[in-house]
């Protein structure tokens, strides 16, 4: 293993940690808006870290740009979906959760 492999391993481990945080948030948080917050932020950081780890393993510039493109595409779609889902939940009369 050379230094790039170590960097990739650390990035992937941190990425998996953020994915776990996103999944636990999806399961444990009380309403759709808080779940949205957990999912669309934590998961994108996880994917970003895994893409960063992959970027240390590519051999050509084209493949590097491809990994970057995947991450940017997921960021854009995820932000769009977060707004759409929150708006649709509000229009359907979903009440934001308040601490009892």
């Amino acid at each position, binding site marked *: 293993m050379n230094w790039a492999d170590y960097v990739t391993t650390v990035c992937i481990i941190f990425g998996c940690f953020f994915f776990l945080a996103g*999944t636990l948030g999806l399961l444990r948080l009380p309403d759709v808006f808080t779940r949205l917050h957990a999912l669309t932020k934590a998961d994108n950081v996880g994917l970003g870290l895994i893409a960063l780890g992959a970027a240390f393993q590519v051999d050509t510039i084209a493949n590097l740009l491809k990994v970057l493109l995947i991450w940017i595409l997921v960021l854009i*779609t995820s932000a769009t*979906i977060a707004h759409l889902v929150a708006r649709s939940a509000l229009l359907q009369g979903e009440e934001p959760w308040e601490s009892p």
Partner: protein
Amino acid sequence: MSVVYQTAALFLMLNIALGLIRILRGPTRADRLLAVQLFGTTGTAILILFSLDLEDEAYKNMALIFALLAGIIGVAFTRYAQKIPRKTKGDGRELG
């Protein structure tokens, strides 16, 4: 390095399995849609890990398609789920 990739991919698949619980419990359509988004993001990450493990760039193309389709699924389902008044043309027909 192969061990790292495979363990991480397996871990992410377990994440997807956990996300299935949210689809079962619901309670609203929006919650189930969120679980689908989780599958999209996690699936993309798994495909990136596969492309590293198998040293095949084709998996990165698949990851791109996954990322794109996850977004389209989300937009399509929210359009279907919400009951907002649609904009109409001059003659009153719906734009869709």
